[in-house]
């Protein structure tokens, strides 16, 4: 279809979006080939547990054996950030998927049917939005018990209201479109109209927001892990690794940046991941909107 070709052309033409595309592509490759890039040592139970080379608390600088060095507790940084890519994608995609599904379901009910249902759903949404997001997430994780799963649950709970609102707004507008009315005129049930006509047209702004949000989700998960509320110790997760590096951000007096590798490496991975998704999200927004206007 020439539309996809046009979109692909636009993606590639713009240097920023191309950069975003390349960055994310690299991360995808790293995530897929993690076992090959950073093989799990023999006999290791859980691939996501970073192998330790000793128990010393002091991070060791990069060496031949540990390409990126080791962090507190002698966890291999290289292994950590490579497999961390996998957990980053996992967290991001799972949270986004659940959030969008809940947001869409509630948003479309509220938007399409209006009236009392709309009011009730919107007030519930308002309640959730009233809490400061990170604090609420922290509270939920603390209540359930820290683990990556609870981080994901907490982020879902905190994130869905924005999508519900966004979808509801789009649906309010789409509801009045002629082709929706025409479909009703043909005798279509409300369900059919929503699923076949309204949602496919309403979903685009949400997808754009989602691609911009993926970075934010990973950042929030990392923040929670940094505070100790995330995955268990030694888990291959970027946030976890920054938590390890907490005590080593500033080194001894004469060498303040002595343990830079412990801090900077996971930080850079987070940075580029978020940057890549942000650029991609911006590109999608620019492509999808003027393309629609171009018609």
């Amino acid at each position, binding site marked *: 279809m020439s539309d996809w070709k046009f979109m692909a052309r636009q993606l590639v033409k713009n240097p920023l979006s191309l950069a975003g595309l390349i960055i994310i592509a690299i991360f995808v490759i790293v995530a897929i080939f993690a076992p090959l890039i950073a093989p799990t040592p023999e006999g290791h139970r859980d691939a996501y547990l970073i192998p330790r080379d000793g128990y010393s608390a002091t991070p060791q600088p990069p060496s031949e054996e540990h390409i990126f060095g080791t962090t507190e507790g002698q966890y291999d940084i290289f292994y950590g950030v490579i497999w961390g890519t996998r957990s980053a994608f996992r967290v991001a995609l799972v949270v986004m998927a659940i959030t969008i599904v809940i947001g869409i379901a509630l948003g479309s009910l509220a938007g399409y049917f209006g009236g009392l249902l709309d009011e009730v759903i919107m007030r519930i949404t308002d309640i959730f939005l009233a809490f400061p997001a990170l604090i609420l997430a922290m509270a939920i994780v603390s209540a359930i018990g820290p683990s990556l799963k609870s981080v994901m649950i907490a982020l879902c709970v905190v994130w869905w209201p924005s999508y519900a609102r966004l979808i509801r707004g789009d649906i309010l507008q789409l509801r009045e479109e*002629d082709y929706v009315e*025409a479909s009703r005129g*043909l*005798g279509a*049930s409300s369900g059919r109209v929503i699923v076949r*006509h309204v949602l496919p*047209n309403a979903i685009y702004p949400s997808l754009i927001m989602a691609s911009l949000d993926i970075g934010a989700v990973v950042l929030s998960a990392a923040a929670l892990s940094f505070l100790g509320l995330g995955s268990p110790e030694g888990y291959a997760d970027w946030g976890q690794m920054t938590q390890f590096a907490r005590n080593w951000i500033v080194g001894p007096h004469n060498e303040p940046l002595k343990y830079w590798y412990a801090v900077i490496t996971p930080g850079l991975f987070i940075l580029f991941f978020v940057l890549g998704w942000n650029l991609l999200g911006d590109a999608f927004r620019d492509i999808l909107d003027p393309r629609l206007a171009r*018609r």
Partner: protein
Amino acid sequence: MNTLVDIRGLKKYFPIIGGVLRRPVGAVKAVDGVSLSVRRGQWLGLVGESGCGKTTLAKTVVRLIKPTSGHIYFDVPDETKALIEDLESQGKNNSKLALLLKDNDLATFSGKRLSSLRRHAQLVHQDPFTSLDPRMKIKDTVAEPLRIHRVLSGEASKTAVKELLGTVGLSAGQMERYPHQFSGGQRQRIAIARALATKPEFIVFDEPTSALDVSVQAQILNLLKDLKKEFGLTYLYITHELLIAESVCDYIAVMYLGKVVEMGRPEEIFHAPRHPYAQSLVAATPVPDPKRRIGRIVLSGEVPSPSNPPPGCTFHPRCSRASKECHELEPPLEPVGGDHYVACFHPL
């Protein structure tokens, strides 16, 4: 049983919500008591300017909008209608009346009855650029009514779609395309094909050519003529262009501010309009004929708002023949010879 669609006393008021407490503070009287009947096989034209309620009427007749009051009878025998009128005039609000209405009056339909009505009465929208789902291939768009009503599916449905597209002058090879790849005229044809899918008897057209070029308009009008002949259809055609109505319709009703002010055959309306508004409408219509300049009857003032229509005859503030009677009483629609009706105390 010559009458296919019988509209009696139809009213549609849209409430205006205002004030802090969000209560209805008024109403936009879009359709204010319209009675029309469309004979089987007739091409009825409904003419009026913006704000006269013609689009609201069109959408109410096919129940895209629920009427505030009034009756719409679709293919109902005369005896039943007479019986209903009888019961109503007796004032008894009994269950027999309610049952009759539920069965026959389109205005009260819901659920399955409404859905089955949709197979017989369809609406074609004004703007072909927005009446087709931009993300659906046209083959799916045209097949949708077949799917909804479970008439056909699979291969049979595909064949039907090809046939429909052929009927409206499009080739089957374009089935896989999206609406934006077609021109305005072609999109309108697709919308017409969609309306024809369930083999309806009655089609309402809401200004189907106003967004199209003159040459394309001519093609669509000729297509409508052919389709009507081929399938024995009945049309209710809404337009603001008198010339089109005069050219293709069998019968014309002129609307002003929610009411029908004159009804008659095209020649009568065009050459001898009796209602002052109809007359000014005819006089104001530009005709491509330099010898015939617009008549000096240029109406003054603007159309009043339908939320606050003038009392009595709604046209009296702009009428040169208005008298005291016109300020107070509403003129009823009366016959003035043959099937020509006028709602005026001082017809021309």
